[in-house]
């Protein structure tokens, strides 16, 4: 039995016409001798009556001051996929096919009990296999599972898998069922060299590696969720990205060792994140590591993830998500890091207090805290750590496999941006990409210009 897992996202199931097109893809697979297993997302995106956000809003509206409990919120969110699954299975039934709707738990998807971001621990595929043997088309709820039925605290509670959960469900089922392929259906006809809304000339890639897709997804493109790509990569399951609305062949995603042509190439341009770039000036190189560690510690305690960390002899810079910037600023502004000196300095002072200063202002902690330190200034040296901030930043990335072994990639990108008068605040690179921190207002132009230079010439 050759099994194919077909996943349909929100836009593919949000109206009867789209569902019919999606159902036809399933029927085509069935007619060609494959055994399809369907995974569906909730119907429509934000604002639609059965979309996940809409369902959660029902709970939030009860009392905006009381956030829903994670367990109950997961149960509520799971309803979106349950409705969608039943509607899709019924659509197939009305077309004359034996279809059966399954919740994540009924499909054997067992997760850990981290509500809202559960990880799949195992899949018990027996029931689905049995259904397939009997000629059924199982239609499985994406994005959800259940905890172990014998879990000490949560007996078979419904969990959700977090962002991109339906892709993760599809890839995981593909592995568990030893599927010949996992097909992710969406509203674009494959993986593009750039966001087609920004770059109409963006091309569809015929083939991509798992690593490229994971990188593209992590860097902002929303075609396949990186967790799904990682599962497919770790278990070598052939993955396809196709359009529900066309017969275009889509993009095949495969192992890099099977494909010499893509080992060193430019794959695409992505952009992601609403970020704030913070630069701290720490004048004493000897004390700098200690001060830096206190910054990391403070951010970690508050759950603020920092990235694009950059060192210079007298500075430290990093970005934080814009939503977390007020927390970061409130924590750091006025923060004091005391350091005891091994020997008194030339003025006989035995300690240094570093105090973080975001800006002058009556309502900021520095302006309150600093005068208080005046009383000890005779014995302790007080040193400001000025912070400068660039708000409204975004990261633009060029996905470039093997760029660390190829010269000139950075020069070409930097030249394109510089010639267009686009300021680059910082750069970062991984094995698969080169990223640039730009002002948000420049992003659209930067993506278009880079695409033109790298993919159209």
């Amino acid at each position, binding site marked *: 039995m050759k099994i194919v897992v077909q996943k349909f996202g929100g836009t593919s199931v949000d109206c009867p016409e789209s569902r019919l097109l999606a159902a036809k893809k399933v029927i085509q697979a069935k007619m060609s001798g494959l055994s399809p297993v369907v995974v569906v997302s909730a119907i429509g995106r934000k604002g639609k009556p059965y979309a996940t956000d809409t369902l959660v809003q029902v709970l939030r509206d009860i009392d905006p001051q009381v956030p829903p409990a994670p367990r109950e919120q997961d149960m509520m969110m799971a309803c979106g996929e349950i409705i969608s699954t039943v509607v899709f299975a019924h659509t197939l039934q009305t077309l004359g096919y034996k279809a059966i709707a399954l919740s994540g738990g009924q499909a054997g998807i067992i997760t850990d009990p981290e509500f809202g971001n559960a990880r799949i*621990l195992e899949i018990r595929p027996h029931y689905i296999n049995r259904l397939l043997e009997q000629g059924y088309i199982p239609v499985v709820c994406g994005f959800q599972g259940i905890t172990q039925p014998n879990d000490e605290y949560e007996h078979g509670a419904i969990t959700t898998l977090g962002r991109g959960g339906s892709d993760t469900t599809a890839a995981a089922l593909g592995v568990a069922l030893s599927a010949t392929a996992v097909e992710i259906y969406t509203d674009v006809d494959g993986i593009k060299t750039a966001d087609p809304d920004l770059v109409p000339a963006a091309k569809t890639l015929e083939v991509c590696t798992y690593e490229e897709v994971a990188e593209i997804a992590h860097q902002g493109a929303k075609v396949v969720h990186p967790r799904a790509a*990682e*599962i497919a990569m770790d278990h070598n399951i052939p993955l396809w990205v196709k359009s529900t609305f066309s017969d275009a062949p889509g993009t095949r995603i495969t192992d890099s060792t099977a494909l010499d042509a893509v080992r060193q190439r430019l794959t695409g341009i992505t952009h992601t994140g609403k970020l704030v770039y913070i630069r701290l000036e720490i004048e004493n190189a000897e004390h700098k590591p200690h001060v830096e560690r206190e910054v990391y510690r403070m951010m*970690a305690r508050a759950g603020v993830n920092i990235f694009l960390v950059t060192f210079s002899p007298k500075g430290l810079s990093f970005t934080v998500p814009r939503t977390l910037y007020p927390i970061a600023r409130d924590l750091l502004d006025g923060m004091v890091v005391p350091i005891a000196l091994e020997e008194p300095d030339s003025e006989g002072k035995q300690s240094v207090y570093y105090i973080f200063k975001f800006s002058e202002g009556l309502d900021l902690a520095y302006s309150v805290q600093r005068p208080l330190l005046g009383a000890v200034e005779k014995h302790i040296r007080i040193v400001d750590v000025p912070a400068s901030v660039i708000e409204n930043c975004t990261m633009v990335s060029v996905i470039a496999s093997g*760029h660390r072994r190829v*010269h000139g990639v950075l020069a070409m990108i930097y030249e394109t941006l510089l010639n267009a008068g686009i300021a680059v605040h910082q*750069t970062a690179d991984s094995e698969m990409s080169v990223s640039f921190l730009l002002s948000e207002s420049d992003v659209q132009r930067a993506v278009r210009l880079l695409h033109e230079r790298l993919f159209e010439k």
Partner: protein
Amino acid sequence: MSLPATETKAPNVSFERERGVYAIHITRDVAHAVVTLEDDSLRSARILQVFRVLASAEVPIFLTKLHRSAVTFAFAGPDLPRVEAALKTVGVKSTARRDLAVIAVRAASMRDLTGVMVAIADGLYAAGARLFETGDSHNSVVCLIENERADEAVQHLKSAFRLDATAIREQNLSSEAAV
């Protein structure tokens, strides 16, 4: 419609990557250059000049960082003579050293994790390793430190992230520079 009964023949499958740090990779024989620039209107043009001469000299660079008065980057140790020669043609002040190693701490969805940076900083501090530069991506945090401190740093990080020996991998850029 009668539904089939559940049975338990086929094996269960487990597969998702663990949360958190799962590996540490060491890359030896890495060099690092600091090119000093004036913080003036020509800064960006000078940075481009530096990138261009390195491209002409066919030197791949990584961990590139822009500072107010400098641009810094890493490269394979054997490329050091070519980098020095290339930078001379631009007429900028620069320093470079070749006794470094890159320690890459790997995790799934690194940017969703908090506290990794502080654990790394604590580990490197305990090993007495000076951090020359750092970089991060969705699946790793990389740190450029002195090669002679790399082994001790890895031991501290291994213990901080509770990894066993199978999680440690090593490569040397000397053998790869010519690629």
